[in-house]
């Protein structure tokens, strides 16, 4: 499969965030998107998933040549898109197990029935792989989870849902060294020709464990430079100023926008 983002302009509350972004991801490829804060990396992931707060001004998002910009969030998910969120949302009262089961069932045709035994084994295996501990199935979705547990739970869902294209939005934030390694290993194990990965990160450390095929630098709402490992090393050592200098990019005064607040704990 191919995910293609064409000349995409996206705004939120009348402020233009993405300004002519182009990106093509083939199944089996891993792309890393790096860039300074407020440059639109998360916006890219959210708009591909269909977040209702963002507005596409122009451009297109194509999945195997078909535009998906008129598809709803759930339709995009069922088409194979996945977003591991930077701040996974807590849903009190809904157990992880019930949630993941419902999500898996939405991908089944009307004639299919979930084989519950097989599903439980797969859930337990994924849980063990990510060292989520016993009882995860019965814990309420992300409620009372540590930052690291929330991130690992995102990867668990990814393992259970088998997406075609997965955006991992700063999956490394909030993870200690061991957890980062574990997440990296699990994501790497999922790599196949059927999965395109888009890693959004600030740091090299995630890319030590998940090797990207392409590295993109995003500044001021578009991809300004594409390369491979050498870009990661240079960013780690020198930051982004050299890119701006090299390409003659001036800083813009972009204020961060809130997409809402996390629900309060009950």
């Amino acid at each position: 499969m191919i995910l293609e983002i064409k000349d995409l302009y996206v705004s939120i509350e009348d402020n233009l965030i993405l300004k002519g972004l182009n990106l093509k991801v083939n199944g089996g490829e891993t792309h890393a998107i790096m860039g300074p804060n407020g440059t639109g990396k998360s916006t890219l992931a959210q708009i591909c998933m269909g977040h209702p707060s963002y507005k596409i001004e122009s451009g297109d998002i194509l999945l195997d040549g078909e535009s998906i910009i008129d598809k709803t969030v759930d339709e995009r998910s069922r088409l194979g898109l996945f977003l591991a969120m930077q701040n996974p949302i807590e849903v009190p009262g809904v157990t992880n197990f019930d949630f993941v089961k419902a999500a898996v069932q939405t991908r089944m045709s009307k004639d299919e029935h979930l084989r519950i035994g097989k599903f439980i084994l797969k859930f337990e295996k994924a849980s063990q792989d990510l060292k989520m501990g016993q009882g995860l199935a019965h814990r309420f979705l992300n409620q009372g989870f540590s930052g690291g547990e929330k991130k690992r739970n995102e990867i668990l869902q990814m393992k259970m849902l088998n997406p075609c294209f997965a955006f991992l939005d700063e999956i490394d934030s909030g993870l200690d060294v061991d957890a980062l390694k574990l997440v990296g290993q699990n994501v790497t194990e999922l790599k196949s020709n059927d999965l395109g990965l888009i890693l959004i990160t600030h740091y090299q450390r995630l890319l030590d464990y998940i090797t990207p095929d392409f590295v993109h630098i995003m500044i001021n709402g578009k991809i300004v430079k594409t390369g491979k490992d050498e870009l990661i090393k240079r960013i780690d050592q020198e930051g982004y100023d050299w890119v701006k200098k090299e390409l003659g990019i001036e800083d813009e005064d972009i204020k961060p926008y809130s997409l809402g607040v996390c629900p309060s704990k009950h």
Partner: protein
Amino acid sequence: MNILKFLKEKKTLIAFDNEQVINKAKISKKNNHLNFEKENDYFVFIENYNLTEKLVFEVNKGLNLRIYLITYQSKNLEIEYEFNIEENASLELYTNFNTRRNNKFNLKLNFNLDENASLKLMSALIFNGNLSLSTNINLNGKKSSAEVEVLNIGYKDTKFNIDQFVRHLNKSTVSNINNSLIATDKSKLKYSVSGFIAKGNELSKAHQSNKGIMLSDSCEIEVEPKLFIDEYNVEASHGAAIGQMDEMQLYYLLSRGLTEQQARSLIIFGYTNPFISMIEDKDIKRLLTSQITRVMKGKADNE
């Protein structure tokens, strides 16, 4: 008396209306006093019982009891229940009030707890009617404690006025109130939640949590959490979070492929599930689940 089928099979049933008493549990009953002397799970079914005096449940010293109290009324009635929980005794009480018609229902629940006594009250309020419910908990004895869990679903033109009052009348007493409220259609749920800690009752704890979700534009939820504290050395908190369905929760579930209807149902289930899972008896659990399913059918659709 139209006793629910599964209740008829319970060996510890006590059921009564104005004409008949079925006392399989062999509870000592004198006038309006039920005296519980043996540890057990009891099922109390009351139908259209027009009480001239309050009905008193006596939980004797040191006993650990669980009572499932099902009240069915099809007339405009006033009822007062009193529970006296003696020293070192504990009562887990599940109440399910119901009506077969849209009528007025005035109800008082009074609890008196002696030293080291504990109460866990789980109230399911899921019917279409006009209810005034006053819950008064008196923590008379030192180290007595009360936990109150309410699941209230309002639908059609339900009007519920609920007053909850916990009085901390001794040292080291603890109360914890959790109200989970769901309003749909044109229902109106009004709660006044009060905790009172009298002077000198140090080391007491009073906590209140109220969460409510409104699923239509015409429904209302009003909650007034109040604390009246006349002692410094205590712990207390209160709060209310009432609103429409959380858009971020909805987006999160949609992003995993659930349809909007499924996602909304799951979020609502998240309100009801913790309450259901607290109930031990599988028949009572099934009764409650079917009640919820019946009234919530189609309510997850976006209006």
